């Protein structure tokens, strides 16, 4: 439960830990970026400007070979020339092979990552926590069955299972209108955000088992507590006991696990997009896959920059998780699930 002691621990730990501060700054930064993407992105991230393609980020210039063909005396002649491509201040992080603005794509990519990460974690928690609490509280057959299901579920790597399920179910996505653009506050930005709904479902379903395991462990240890026994003796029904007594006391490790899971699901989402198993093309993983074909021809930034965005987001969330873990000390081992 969130007591005064917990708040005090959080504060003390935050004051003493430079890493916790960095984590909070990174996470707040990403939250703001994702929420206000239409105002932060300088361009429409999907707008193609072929005459502006493959511009390097500010501070870098690139020599590249351009082949042009022209009609000379009725014959087509190809001319290969080495040209110097210089950055353009309108595209501070450069552009990709189709002339789309990298900065805008990275800003909008934060939305996809964060929305999938948070929704997927919520779904996993909503499935896993009740199942785990119920099984741990009742023990016996229910518990045995759950643990065997969990064992089987763990035997399939998250990524493999997610890829297989998306392969079977297809890549559905829904368009969610962007309120800022609909209200006319950010003209020229995409009117809707593409939510890859299958990906959310699948990452939630492959990661529920981590929540079930932690919730079960907590319920197992809490069911022996005096106040739970007393409630039972007073005739309270099991659902009420689980809801009123077991869940509030199990919430701390679940929150810490949830934090770590957001990071794990962001990594999983980027892997799925990288492999082409996502319903949206506006994603860091997707851009890395696009940029991969250009690293041998010199356009290193297309693949590199979105990866840095993933790395710093996940570092931020992991630091936040470490901070919570160190101050709440729920004693869960390791970190669950990942790409």
């Amino acid at each position: 439960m969130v007591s005064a002691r917990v708040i005090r621990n959080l504060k003390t730990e935050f004051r003493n830990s430079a890493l916790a501060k960095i984590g909070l700054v990174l996470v707040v930064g990403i939250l703001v970026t994702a929420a206000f993407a239409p105002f932060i992105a300088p361009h429409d991230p999907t707008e193609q400007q072929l005459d502006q393609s493959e511009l390097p980020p500010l501070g870098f210039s690139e020599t590249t070979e351009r082949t042009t063909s022209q009609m000379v005396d009725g014959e087509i002649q190809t001319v290969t020339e080495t040209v110097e491509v210089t950055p353009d201040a309108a595209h501070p992080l450069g552009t990709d092979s189709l002339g789309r603005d990298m900065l805008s794509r990275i800003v909008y990519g934060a939305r996809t990552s964060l929305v999938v990460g948070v929704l997927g974690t919520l779904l996993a928690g909503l499935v896993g926590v009740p199942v785990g609490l119920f099984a741990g509280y009742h023990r016996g057959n229910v518990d045995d069955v759950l643990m065997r299901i969990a064992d089987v579920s763990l035997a399939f790597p998250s990524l493999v299972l997610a890829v297989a399920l998306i392969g079977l179910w297809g890549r559905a996505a829904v368009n969610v209108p962007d309120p800022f653009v609909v209200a006319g506050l950010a003209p020229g930005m995409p009117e809707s955000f593409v939510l890859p709904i299958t990906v959310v479902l699948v990452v939630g379903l492959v990661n529920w088992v981590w929540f079930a395991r932690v919730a079960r462990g907590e319920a197992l240890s809490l069911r022996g507590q005096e106040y739970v026994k007393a409630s039972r003796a007073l005739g309270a029904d099991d659902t009420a006991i689980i809801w009123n007594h077991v869940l509030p006391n199990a919430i701390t490790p679940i929150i810490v696990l949830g934090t770590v899971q957001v990071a794990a699901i962001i990594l999983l989402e980027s892997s799925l997009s990288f492999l082409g198993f996502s319903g949206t093309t506006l994603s860091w993983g997707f851009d890395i896959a696009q940029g991969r074909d250009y690293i041998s021809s010199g356009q290193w930034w297309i693949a590199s920059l979105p990866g840095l965005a993933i790395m710093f987001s996940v570092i931020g969330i992991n630091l936040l998780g470490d901070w919570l873990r160190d101050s709440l000390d729920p004693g869960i081992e390791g970190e669950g699930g990942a790409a």
Partner: protein
Amino acid sequence: MSFGRFVLKRSLQGLGVVWGVVTVVFALRFVTPGSAINAVAPLDADQETRQAIAAELGLDQPLYVQYGQYVSDLLRGDMGFSYIRGQEVAGLVFARLPATVELALAASVVAIVLSIPLGVLSATRRNEPVDYGATLLSLGGISTPNFWLGIMLILVFAVEFDVFNTSGRGVDVGDVALSLIGAEPFVGTLLAWLAYITLPAIALGTYFMALITRLTRSGMLDELSKGYVQAAQAKGLPQTLVRYKHALRNTLIPVITVLGLQLGTLIGGAVITEAVFSWPGLGTLVIESINTRDWPVLQGSLIVIGTSFVFVNVLVDAVYAYLDPQVVND
């Protein structure tokens, strides 16, 4: 309970999980959109082929007969037939398995060899520069997507410096073993093998290196503060033994549990690492089979992956029981 009985018990439990894996994969044919035939037949198959497949799979039979058929086929090593590739699934899957095992083992070696000394160093030199370095390195390691790390490694070591191969598996570990008995020059073969495997192994192993470093560091700090460490120092035991024989041993016991749980991450990571480096393993086979809607191959791969996971976990438990013999009695 003896060590042998413990391992036997865990093996039987493992068999139960494998049975669950098989059942789940069998059930996959019914979550496929449309008829179960779609899960086996190529999209462009004509009506005749579809009927032939339906008859062969026994789709007109009651469910339990289909299931019995499926399980007994598997027991005979028959994983079905890929109509798209025109090949037996079992042959296809087992031809790809060694490459994935080689990659996963190489990554584990990279991870374990670097992480445990780093974690111990970090814990014994707490708040010194080496500890800060290890902490940052491991934080970055658990936060970096391995496919991106792979691409960056290619960018630096293959594109810029041209040191390593970036695609495929030109030389496998078997060739290196053969060169030992003189089939090929040993050093040359070894270097050629390293040129292929080094980058994928680093890309896949980094996350685990970082994870184990973190677990080892926090576990060692925990253990070093315990009474038995002080008692061991007080009786004059050399520092090496206090740290490695006493504290590290107890640190590794929970670390091994977490690693067993994280094994799925290793295999999942192998899938995507193979995609980056065009490594001809099970992972690329899974992706290819989904892209071509070759469900029998996907099902076969899932069974092999699930079974490998269970097998290695039983192995991990055996190591656990060896390190901490009291586990056997619980």
